[in-house]
């Protein structure tokens, strides 16, 4: 009973955050688009409310949830209703694939969904405490400290446990602990359900956002590509934070893209919020947040017509969306979490920056992981995608070009940021690359698929761009 109440409150919190940007959007695709956002933003909000309740010594989280719902509802009522937002698919998005090919695509779509559901289910049953060390040594352990520690929840940030990375942001542990509090038990089913929920939401959101840009055939193709990535499925049941991070990466990139191309500041606010939740999920998300701001600024500077008041207002909207979570993260890092080990030794960092063999090692690993991170069989899809790109037309209208540039800059800067982090890492370089690079690539993979399938047209009205 209380679990149902918790799930309803979680979705309501997400809905109240997303709703101002969704007024007037109609149709099944828009509903799917906003439902995925409401669910995952709701989980993010659930962790924020839990942490704040713990910090303010509020014992009954139900009261904290009701306060949050009341606050957001009041804000919504006070804010004036704005003009309706159109999320109808673009006119260029209709597809006319030949019937046999379309049937093959539909069959592949159905098969990949069924196989993903089956594989996730059996993996979740086989590994109810997660598949891999990080699940029980980091994420679920943090959740146990937050839930079982009650008023002594800060013990989990002990410097005696540096291996559990107490500096990691608490979106996943906070949401798990919040749901456990309603259940009054640390049931393994909760992290399992959150992991599966984020995995399903990532695939569904990818479908919806590509469908808005390019129609259902491209959306099916993009989703098949994601769901036929074995590592995505493996991680979906692993109870790590990488799939939630992948969702917030995708949400940031898709919302930035749609926000800029449709001139909607409300979508850009949500993009900032999604980047904020990415930073609240893993430290890597902070890099995305920073890259999103710099990336939009850069694409404005390089674009003509460039920086005008209208575009500056759009940039400000995405910054405003990220601001509340940025403040929260600053509070968390300053007052709760112990300092991380990454920037602990500036002298050593400088020495590593000037060691060029480290750049070469990281570059080699980037090359290797590009081909194999997905765990594909026989043909890496990262090789197959460029073939599609060169064979099919990929024209963009003027407003889409600006949106695409902002998204590509954001993702590109993030990946380059990872590169720099590897160069200066205080950990043994090969060890660090071996155990994290594939998951970093996986976090960016749904966003790459969104950008790719938003660019390439599979219409056989068939214009070839030169």
């Amino acid at each position, binding site marked *: 009973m209380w679990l149902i109440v918790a799930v309803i409150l979680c979705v309501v919190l997400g809905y109240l955050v997303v709703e101002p940007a969704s007024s007037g959007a109609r149709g099944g695709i828009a509903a799917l688009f906003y439902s995925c956002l409401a669910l995952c933003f709701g989980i993010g909000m659930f962790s924020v409310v839990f942490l704040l309740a713990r910090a303010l010594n509020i014992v009954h989280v139900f009261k904290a949830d009701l306060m949050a719902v009341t606050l957001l509802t009041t804000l919504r009522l006070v804010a004036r209703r704005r003009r309706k937002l159109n999320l109808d698919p673009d006119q260029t998005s209709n597809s006319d*694939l*030949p019937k046999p*090919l379309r049937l*093959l695509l539909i069959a*592949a779509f159905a*098969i*990949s969904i069924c*196989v*993903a559901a089956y*594989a996730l289910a*059996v*993996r979740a*049953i*086989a*590994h*109810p*405490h997660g598949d891999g*060390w990080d699940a*029980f*040594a980091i994420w679920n*352990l943090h959740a*146990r*400290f937050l839930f*079982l*520690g009650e008023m*002594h*929840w800060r*013990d*989990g940030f*002990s410097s*005696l*446990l540096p291996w*559990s990375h107490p500096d990691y942001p608490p979106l996943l542990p906070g949401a798990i602990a919040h749901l456990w509090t309603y259940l009054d038990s640390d049931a*393994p089913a909760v992290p399992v359900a959150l992991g599966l929920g984020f995995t399903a939401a990532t695939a569904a959101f990818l479908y919806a956002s590509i469908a808005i840009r390019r129609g259902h055939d491209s959306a099916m*193709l993009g989703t*098949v*590509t994601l769901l*036929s990535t*074995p590592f995505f*499925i*493996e991680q979906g049941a692993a109870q790590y934070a990488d799939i939630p991070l992948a969702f917030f990466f995708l949400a940031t990139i898709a919302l930035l893209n749609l926000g800029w191309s449709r001139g909607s500041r409300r979508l850009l606010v949500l993009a900032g919020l999604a980047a904020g939740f990415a930073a609240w999920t893993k430290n890597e998300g902070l890099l995305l947040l920073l890259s999103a701001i710099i990336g939009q600024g850069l694409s404005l500077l390089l674009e003509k017509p460039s920086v005008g008041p209208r575009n500056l207002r759009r940039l400000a909207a995405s910054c405003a969306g990220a601001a509340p979570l940025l403040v929260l993260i600053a509070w968390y890092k300053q007052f709760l979490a112990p300092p991380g080990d990454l920037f602990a030794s500036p002298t050593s960092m400088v020495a590593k920056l000037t060691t060029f063999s480290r750049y070469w090692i990281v570059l080699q690993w980037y090359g290797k992981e590009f081909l194999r991170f997905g*765990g*594909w*069989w*026989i*043909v890496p*899809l990262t090789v*197959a995608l460029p*073939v*599609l790109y060169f*064979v*099919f*037309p990929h024209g963009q209208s003027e407003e889409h070009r600006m949106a695409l540039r902002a998204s590509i800059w954001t993702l590109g800067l993030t990946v380059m940021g990872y590169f720099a982090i590897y160069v200066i890492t205080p950990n043994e370089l090969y060890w660090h690359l071996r155990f994290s690079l594939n998951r970093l690539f996986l976090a960016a993979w749904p966003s790459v698929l969104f950008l790719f399938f938003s660019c390439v047209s*599979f219409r*056989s009205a*068939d*214009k*070839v*761009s*030169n």
Partner: protein
Amino acid sequence: MDQIATGGTRRKRKLILAIFIGCCLLSVIRIVRDAPGPSRIQLDDVAKRSDQRFAAVKLVLPGRGIIGYVGENGESSLPDYYLTQYALAPLVVDRSIQHKFVVGNFPSLQVPSSLPGLRKVEDFGNGVVLLSNEDAR
């Protein structure tokens, strides 16, 4: 500048798209192959090695604070320690014997009859033992 595709280009595109979908389906086969078959699903190893093993000792330990840890050497020593911490949270388990109470974890070996500086308080079986360090503060 754009140009209308010829019939040959269309056929080539159809073929390439079909091949791409085929490549995706190849990896779908791998997903099925790598998933544990329903008959191969075994009992949860993490629960067996953590919550179930430490359930008894958890009952006699304080609800919060810091306790020490001593365990086996070798490859499994690190996961054994992590799983002990996972089972005993919200107690902080420090991998040191400089604490009044120390949990001993010996999943694959006999519990040593004596450990330097430590006195056995209670043996919970299954390789789990509660020890005390009289010299610790």
